[in-house]
């Protein structure tokens, strides 16, 4: 077959394919639209029925009698959307309804589907059923080959407050591609105060630094004051390269990202994570660490420490915050000025003094912030 003949045949085939595609697109869409419309109407009536059941549980036999076999799929979707938006008694009634209708069993069966997204969907819904069989299935799903399924299972287990071991969760989630995902962070944050001891164990053990950061962030968000001493220890002894100077840090910034993310030089991220956690915990024991962080060689840590100082509300930070109004980095000056303003009258007086000073940097930021807050300079 010649070259041109090949082009002719291929183009003829494509022309035929085009016609077929156009036909399929139009016909399929018309069927799909019809189904979508039908599903929407059915969902509406199912929702009305479900709400009636919630108000009057004795209505259940009548509700069940009105259901068609194909309604199960719609009901799972409907309740998966509804459950995160209802609380307390209402949520329990919805879960009870789902259980009585066999939706829990349907989801448990779906956990064995060969399609990972179906397994993930099922794991998400199972997060509302507090029973041993579900917890076993979700724990099994933590070893699923697909990371999305593991994430959904972990989220469901944290929702059920049924995480058996934080170390196990770390092993299954914190060593995958999604390590940096904010979704993983959110799972650890949701562990609750029951997991504080184990999280403290994680930050004190010899685990990679990104895992320590994850645990530090979680401890901050859980807000348990028991975490403070361990976080302070972590701040003062962050790792193998604790005492880096600003010059060393700047030299490292020029290196490849892959190198920078190695534990030998990631203590900056850890110090930052500790400061962020401390600014949520707001504990007076962290004052010394915050004061030290206000002189950190890394500007991001100084800026975070300024924010932290304002949260703590201690006047002891004022002299160092005043110094930071002259910092070489604008964001540090800005956070220092904001912190001073939040510290009240003494801080405002410091800002007024700086606004009238001869230092252009300090005068600019202090004067600008005061004007922004409506204070005459």
């Amino acid at each position, binding site marked *: 077959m010649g070259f041109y003949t090949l082009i002719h045949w291929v183009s003829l085939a494509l022309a035929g394919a085009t016609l077929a595609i156009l036909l399929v697109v139009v016909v399929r869409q018309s069927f799909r639209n019809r189904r979508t419309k039908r599903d929407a109407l059915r969902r509406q009536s199912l929702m009305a029925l479900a709400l009636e059941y919630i108000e009057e549980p004795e209505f259940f036999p009548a509700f069940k009698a009105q259901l068609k076999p194909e309604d199960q799929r719609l009901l799972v979707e409907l309740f998966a959307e509804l459950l*995160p938006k209802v609380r307390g008694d209402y949520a329990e009634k919805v879960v009870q309804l789902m259980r009585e209708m066999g939706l829990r069993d349907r989801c448990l069966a779906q956990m064995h589907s060969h399609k990972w997204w179906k397994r993930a969907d099922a794991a998400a819904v199972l997060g509302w059923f507090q029973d041993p069989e579900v917890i076993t299935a979700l724990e099994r799903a933590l070893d699923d080959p697909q990371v999305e399924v593991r994430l959904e299972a972990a989220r469901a287990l944290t929702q059920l407050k049924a995480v058996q071991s934080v170390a196990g969760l770390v092993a299954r989630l914190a060593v995958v591609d999604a390590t940096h995902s904010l979704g993983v962070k959110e799972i650890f944050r949701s562990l609750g105060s029951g997991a504080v001891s184990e999280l403290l164990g994680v930050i004190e053990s010899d685990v990679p630094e990104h895992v320590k950061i994850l645990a530090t962030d979680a401890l901050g968000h859980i807000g348990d004051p028991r975490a403070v001493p361990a976080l302070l220890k972590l701040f003062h002894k962050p790792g193998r390269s604790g005492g880096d100077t600003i010059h060393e840090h700047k030299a490292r910034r020029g290196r490849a990202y892959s190198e920078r993310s190695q534990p030998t030089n990631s203590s900056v991220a850890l110090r930052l994570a500790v400061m962020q956690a401390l600014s949520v915990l707001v504990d007076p024991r962290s004052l010394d660490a915050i004061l030290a962080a206000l002189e950190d060689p890394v500007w991001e840590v100084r800026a975070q420490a300024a924010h932290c100082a304002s949260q703590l509300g201690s006047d002891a930070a004022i002299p160092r915050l005043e110094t930071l109004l002259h910092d070489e980095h604008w964001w540090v000056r800005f956070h220092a000025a904001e912190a001073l303003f939040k510290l009240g009258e003494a801080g405002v007086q410091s800002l007024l003094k700086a606004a009238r000073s001869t230092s252009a940097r300090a005068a600019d930021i202090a004067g600008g912030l005061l004007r922004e807050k409506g204070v005459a300079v």
Partner: protein
Amino acid sequence: MTLLWSIVRFLNGCVLALLLVQSVIYLWQLVVAFIELRHHRRGASRADPWWMLTSGVALPISILVPAHNEEETIVENVRSMLALHYPDFEVIVINDGSKDRTLAVLVEALGLQKIERVWHADVEHQEIRALYGSPRHPRLLVVDKVNGGKSDALNAGINLSRFPLFCAVDADSLLDHDSLLQVMRPFIEEPEEMVAVGGRICIVNGCTVRAGQVTDIALPARPLPLLQSIEYIRAFLIARLAWSRLDAMLIISGAFGLFKRSAAVKVGGYSHDTVGEDMEIVVKLHRHFRERDQKYQMRFVADSVCWTQAPETLGVLRRQRTRWQRGMMQTLAKHRLMVFNPKYGPAGTLGMGYFFLFDIIGPVVELAGLLLVPFSFYMGEVTPHFFLAWVALTFTYGVFLSASSLLLEMMVTRTTRPRDLALLAMSAVLENFGYRQLNNLWRLEGIWQFLTGKQGWGAMQRTKFRKSAGT
């Protein structure tokens, strides 16, 4: 004479070769886009908007809205942006020296007053005259500045923004209520490496807009916007998706793009010396991170939608297309070092190489083919086989691709009316006979304008959005 025909035959060969390569690349893009869309849809279903709204994972965003002579639509647009579903965001409208009443209508409608805000000049821009805010709308900041162009206005917005991410949105565009949540998804998955994410642009002409939201999606009634609709579907659902998957995406539409502020500041913000600032900043980001051997990612999110007004007259469309071509040429010329350069990874070899071959050389060769091949065939200088092969490559593949993009459209948009799909299908065929060639002609004009050093944007017409009955 023989020499002349030899040259013509050689040129004809070049035309056919280029069309062949282009067709193969388009087919490859189609397959890659399909794979990416399947992958994306499964992943997308995992990020429930309610979870994103309530879990605290969504990072705060500054929405930057550069506005120049937008008095017709600005108030409605700002109101629509203030009503977006997102946990933490601010809207910064930058009035770029408008000559109409853009600032006045904003002040009147939103009850704005002059305010102070401390900011730092991280990137360059023209002087800021005043800042406006309102206690009624604490998320809103209006910046009044001396005219300096869209890039300049965006730079002012970057300087005034205080959140880690900024989203550049055109003042004549509307975002779907959950667009920000959707476009944020890649940043949740990869908060450290992700530097920019682009959303999809759809044409609002023909749709019904109520309270700043598109309430009824319909195709434009006029032929020119209708043809642009299929063009946008093809561009976003095939090209943009494929390049995103291949890490070679060079354009994030200026109408809707989310950027990491610190990354944009590192590359000096938007450049003033180009009219294609949206492409230029993306190319600069690629260049910056590749030259420093730092890991980074950019993504396109197909179901995060921004609605924009498409030109309805040939004159305005021509100005837009020549400007796009000029902007692309300026970016390619400025970063010519990257073209086919493996040091810049897929962005240099695939992305820049593709733009050079098919967006600069391509229009010239395609138009030359339109003139030379039929003439040569008429004169008996090319065989009927050659002529038919050229016709096939020129038209059949184009129609096939446009039709295939409708399949992808069905994967993204679930409720398009069959009548609209039929209309789009018809446009997919018709655009290959006249519209595509006209576009190529405008591209040539853009190349000419670039070579002769023409500057400026040219006037764009703004019209009020169509409202539903009773509003």
